């Protein structure tokens, strides 16, 4: 039985220790906001925060995150930055199919925490690990800038 710290709560799970955090969230804890896209940390759909930093939950076994504070899309809207990012996502009409957007929002929120005024190069660096097949990238860029302004 492993104990995890997810969204400020201690959560127990009987998932084997090699199980990626993604599947513990989705299949054991019914937190389905975090998405499965590739299973190889190539697309970013599964992005969560570990101690505030973006991480790919699809390749992160739960045995490796027993001591970390895990934050998911289900809770990020309760932070100031997460709320601003989500509002900007709506204002800029970012989502199309929407499947990658949980991961995009998590990556963007982490970016703004480390760089409150990101340049285009910062956005490229922080967001290029997150694939969007609907190619909503330009609106994501605009939304990040909008959220940054909102938070300033």
């Amino acid at each position, binding site marked *: 039985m492993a104990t995890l710290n997810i969204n400020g709560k201690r959560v127990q799970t009987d998932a084997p220790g090699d199980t990626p955090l993604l599947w513990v969230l989705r*299949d054991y804890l019914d937190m*389905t906001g975090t998405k*499965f896209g*590739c299973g190889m940390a190539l*697309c970013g759909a599964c992005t969560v925060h570990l101690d505030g930093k973006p991480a790919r939950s699809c390749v992160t076994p739960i045995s490796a995150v027993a001591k970390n504070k895990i934050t998911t899309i289900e809770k990020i809207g309760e932070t100031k930055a997460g709320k601003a990012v989500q509002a900007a996502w709506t204002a800029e009409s970012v989502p*199309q*199919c929407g499947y990658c957007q949980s991961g995009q929002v998590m990556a963007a929120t982490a970016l703004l925490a480390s760089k409150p005024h990101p340049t285009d190069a910062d956005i490229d660096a922080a967001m290029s690990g997150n694939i969007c*097949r609907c190619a909503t990238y330009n609106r994501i860029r605009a939304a990040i800038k909008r959220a940054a302004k909102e938070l300033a």
Partner: protein
Amino acid sequence: MITNESRRLEGRRKFLKHSGALLLGLHLPQTLAQGPGKTAEDHLVLHKPFAPNAFVRIAPDNTVTVIVKHLEMGQGTYTGLPTLVAEELDADWSQIRAEGAPADAKLYNNLFWGAAQGTGGSTALANSYEQLRKAGASARAMLVAAAAEKWKVPAQEVVVSRGVVSHKNKKLSFGQLAADAAKQPVPTDVQLKDPKNFTYIGKAVRRTDAHAKSNGTARFTQDVKLPGMMTAVALHPPRFGAKLKSFDASKAKEIAGVRDVVQFSTPARDGVAVLAKDYWTAKKGRDALTAEWDESNAFKLSSSELMDQYKKLAATQGVSAKKEGDADQALAGAAKVLEAAYEFPFLAHASMEPMNCVVSLQARGENATCEIWNGEQFQTIDQMVVAQTLGLKPEQVKLNQLYAGGSFGRRANPASDYLVEAAAITKAAGGKYPVKLVWGREDDMRAGWYRPMYYHVLKAGLDEKGDLVAWKHVIVGQSILTGTAFEAMLVKDGVDGTSVEGAANLPYAVANLAVELHSPKVGVPVQWWRSVGSTHTAFATECFLDEVAREAKKDPYQLRRALLAKHPRHLAALDAAAKRAGWGKALAKGRSRGIAVHESFNTVVAQVVEISRKGSSLKIQKVVCAVDCGVAVNSNVVAMQMESGIGYGLSAALTGAITLKDGMVEQSNFHDYQPVRMNQMPRIEVLIVPSKEKPTGVGEPATPVIAPALANAILALEGKPMRALPLSTQGVTFA
């Protein structure tokens, strides 16, 4: 006798009782004559020879739910279709909700597809344009009638605006009027608004799904969990057409948590599935399976071998898809003949949500049902195919609509491949628990149903003045429609219309035009991929035209203008894009522009791409995209679809290719099938050509234009024609 129809109506009536909602039965024009004098509820209760149409539900809580008959896969149906209802209903946008329609082709057929329900060909908004406006107008008329009756005033004096029904100082909300409106007769005819009075159409209301898709609450098939449900992860054949001989599940069964291991055989593929409560356990089980396959009928060629065969075929006489004048003779007599060949690989759709499907089987025999949860793009076909697999009637297959995490055509599978697989696995497991089939990215990428490989040969004849006098276009590639439900309708005289669309209807004025087609049968399953035939014909025709312009020393934009005199929509889009991009204005050294224009799904898109060279690689500086899609119902959604189509087309243009080595798919995940990422996405400016015509589709038409516009920019900059996709095979790299 209880017919399915009356059962359906029974269900509706129960729903009405419980919800207290006003469900408005809408009539199609041909059925209007049969409906006067009856209330909406009468129509639902009585078994009528016509089926009432149901698109609008107004609840006492003042929400207006629009039942959307088309899949929301990103293209904006849950916004565009409700906009049509809200417009004629004079609702307030904040009270609008969108809900996916169940499978019921009588109510929710695609009006462009006859009796079938489904989404594709950029038809969702276009086929619904009048249908849903009438739905809204009819609902409005009943609300007005109810208010007039209540207030004892003439209906003509009742005003509806932003969700409020009023007469002088009396006001009621839709919700307050819902119960009374339900008792009103359904109008026999409704007047639609004069477009000059539109309040929503032509504007940019916010998407109904944006919020839920920004906070993780939007529900996709991947998120469905039913009591007792098992997750299935499947082992697929290593080559297309391989049959399962035997398998060894002993190691898989040793893994704690593996519940069952079952084999399945569907028309699409054989396989073995491992079932467990969670994906990770099922995947570990699947990875521990070993299997032997009978590959005697499997496809074993490599892409290069297949392309060699196509090249040989291209040199033989094909089936004529278009013949005007005599292209061969004109080529023989031309002062100059140009020839170029173009190569296109297989392409995977690779939507962000890998294919998946939830199935629950209940009871047996007469009362059996198969309930499915899926991002449903092809309801009528899926019901038929799944029913066949399970020995049920189509109406025993119930489909629950969910958001689709992308599709790009993949979910409209002619063989319902992943649904049937999920159904077959559920049945093989004895139907004792619901099953969620989850494909990993590798399973999804290697499962086939690709955009076909194609080979094109083009010849152009020029006279002494450099004018175009002949155009011959030979296309080699698999038919997508042969063997599907669309074959009878769309394959004519051996020509699959989707293989030659964009080529056989070449808009350029050329006296002698010939288009020939070869449709070899190949054991790799293929299907439509965002913009279908135009994915390759636009590239071949638009790049070749630039080669002609170069040979004739003509400006590519001006040459197009000269040849498009009879195509005002092409001209308008072309002019708009060229003007905004500053076509003709001098550029800094190391920069160039490329232009292309193409019509698909009755929408015309023109793009100008500006590129620059930096060291050994190129950079796309900017894309200007002009679109004529008739009335732009939501200009924001139109712009989003142009941007999305460009990004999707760019992925295929730069690096996208599925290649086969001895019949095995070489790519597996996003490291070797690389979509465009944030750092590669160009700046895009979208211009909408003003139009008063009925709306046409926007989901696909931007996709095919970007690759030729980009290739033409490269030709202008480097003097080297790009004759194969992806461009990475042509020694071109992008920063």
